[in-house]
């Protein structure tokens, strides 16, 4: 296996862009990433990409050029971007190609995600009865976690407050105004214990990353950010997943535990070696639970971490430096690559008002989604 570098990054702002299709947002991100790398579309030897709700990614050749390159569609729920990155990483690590592009984009209607039972091999009555709602799952996983590990509603508020505060300095974020913690805690309850400011909203956006071999990256003078690990895992027995009519009494692991462990092994480092982190935060409790699932603290330690601001930009381990899904919104096909975009930007020292101090060397990103899949990447400068 040869080393793989991220040599170009591009993003189309998240949120709502009326009149621009999801695919066009992906194409805009691709153009930005190629310009950043000093390359053009005919230089791309392959592409991997996907969206959840905005169509087949391979039709992007109509926007970018009919160069005949192989382009593979990815449709992996919240791990779509992460899977596109892994496909691209493998294509270069294997020696088959020198340079290629990973693209993720999406454009969802307003309101909650609308899942149908048949898409998840579930009986019709399950949706008819009102169980086909992702927010319920997040709320119930969190409710139990809070009871078992002593997590307070105040900590949920602190996570959301930090997200909006960080996003003020992220020009690709959607919600860029600070919200104070009292407003967050006293806002309308959506699914107990989570108020409306503690959930992300379905959104739009596009991200692209240009990857290259070490040789190509050096030729271009772009060998700053290396991919140390890129991993996707599906669920183990006994995990608690969205859309589950029942689960075993004997509780087991979680897909994030598997992906995280595999990524650390692949990178040859541990959680203590990581300088900054992007965690799946589709609601503020998810960030709290994922801090522990990815090995950064013990269950229940998050109370102390958040009270002391240790996950702030200037804390001991900054988490979700661009405001995460809470502030950027959730375009499913793009979010995983947004995290890697943000990490690459931070490692290059280009974070501007949200730059993590002390010249960070390692950055970790994590996605999780239905029906029990998790993706982790580790980058190194």
């Amino acid at each position: 296996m040869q080393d793989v570098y991220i040599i170009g990054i591009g993003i189309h702002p998240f949120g709502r862009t009326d009149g621009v299709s999801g695919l066009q947002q992906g194409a805009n991100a691709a153009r930005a990433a190629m310009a950043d790398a000093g390359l053009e579309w005919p230089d791309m030897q392959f592409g991997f990409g996907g969206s959840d709700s905005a169509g087949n990614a391979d039709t992007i050749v109509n926007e970018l050029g009919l160069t005949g390159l192989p382009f593979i569609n990815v449709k992996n729920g919240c791990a779509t971007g992460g899977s596109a990155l892994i496909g691209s990483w493998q294509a270069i690590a294997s020696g088959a190609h020198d340079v290629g592009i990973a693209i993720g984009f999406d454009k969802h209607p307003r309101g909650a995600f609308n899942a149908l039972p048949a898409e998840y091999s579930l009986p019709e009555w399950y949706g008819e009865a009102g169980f086909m709602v992702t927010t319920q799952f997040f709320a119930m996983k969190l409710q139990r976690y809070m009871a078992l590990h002593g997590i307070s509603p105040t900590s949920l508020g602190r996570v959301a407050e930090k997200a909006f505060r960080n996003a003020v300095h992220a020009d690709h974020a959607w919600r860029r105004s600070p919200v104070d913690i009292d407003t967050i805690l006293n806002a309308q309850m959506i699914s107990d214990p989570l108020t409306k400011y503690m959930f992300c909203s379905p959104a739009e956006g596009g991200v692209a990353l240009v990857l290259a071999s070490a040789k190509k990256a050096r030729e271009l003078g772009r060998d700053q950010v290396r991919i140390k690990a890129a991993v996707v895992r599906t669920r183990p027995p006994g995990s608690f997943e969205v859309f589950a009519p029942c689960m075993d009494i004997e509780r087991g692991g979680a897909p994030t535990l598997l992906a995280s462990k595999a990524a650390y092994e692949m990178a040859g480092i541990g959680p203590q070696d990581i300088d900054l982190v992007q965690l799946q935060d589709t609601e503020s409790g998810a960030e709290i639970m994922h801090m522990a699932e990815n090995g950064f603290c013990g269950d229940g330690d998050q109370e102390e971490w958040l009270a002391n601001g240790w996950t702030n930009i200037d804390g001991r381990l900054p988490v979700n430096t661009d405001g995460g899904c809470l502030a950027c919104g959730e375009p499913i096909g793009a979010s995983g690559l947004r995290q890697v975009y943000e990490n690459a930007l931070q490692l290059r020292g280009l974070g501007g008002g949200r730059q993590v101090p002390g010249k960070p060397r390692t950055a970790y990103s994590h996605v999780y989604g239905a029906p029990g899949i998790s993706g982790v990447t580790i980058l190194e400068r």
Partner: protein
Amino acid sequence: MGASAIAEGLFRETPEPTLIGGRHRETGRIVFPCPDDAARWEAVDLPRRGTLWSWTVQRFRPKSPPYTGPEDFAPFAIGYVELPGATIVETQLTGVDFDRLMIGMAIELTTIAFTTDADGKDVRLYAFTPVTEG
């Protein structure tokens, strides 16, 4: 005016209603609902009482489709119930104030008139409710 269950094979509407799970013929693992695969799974009655494993309140009307509950929406509680020796089942919770819901509380199976169908007939759904002493 009759009534019908939301789906066949989920539960029996006897005076003491019963959920019908499935037991794997080789491993003994119990799931709900019973999978439609008689070669591997046999139907089994699930315990009627259990403890609340987790809960939340659905405070906005789920999108239709797939939701077929009343247009005139009222928030409802849902949860997972641990049925001892069997499995943990997802369910609506009925007959309890939202601020009394607590993980570990004792609850038992009942059924509710969940909605009405196109002919105006009640559609019945299983639900769990706090155990009343006595």
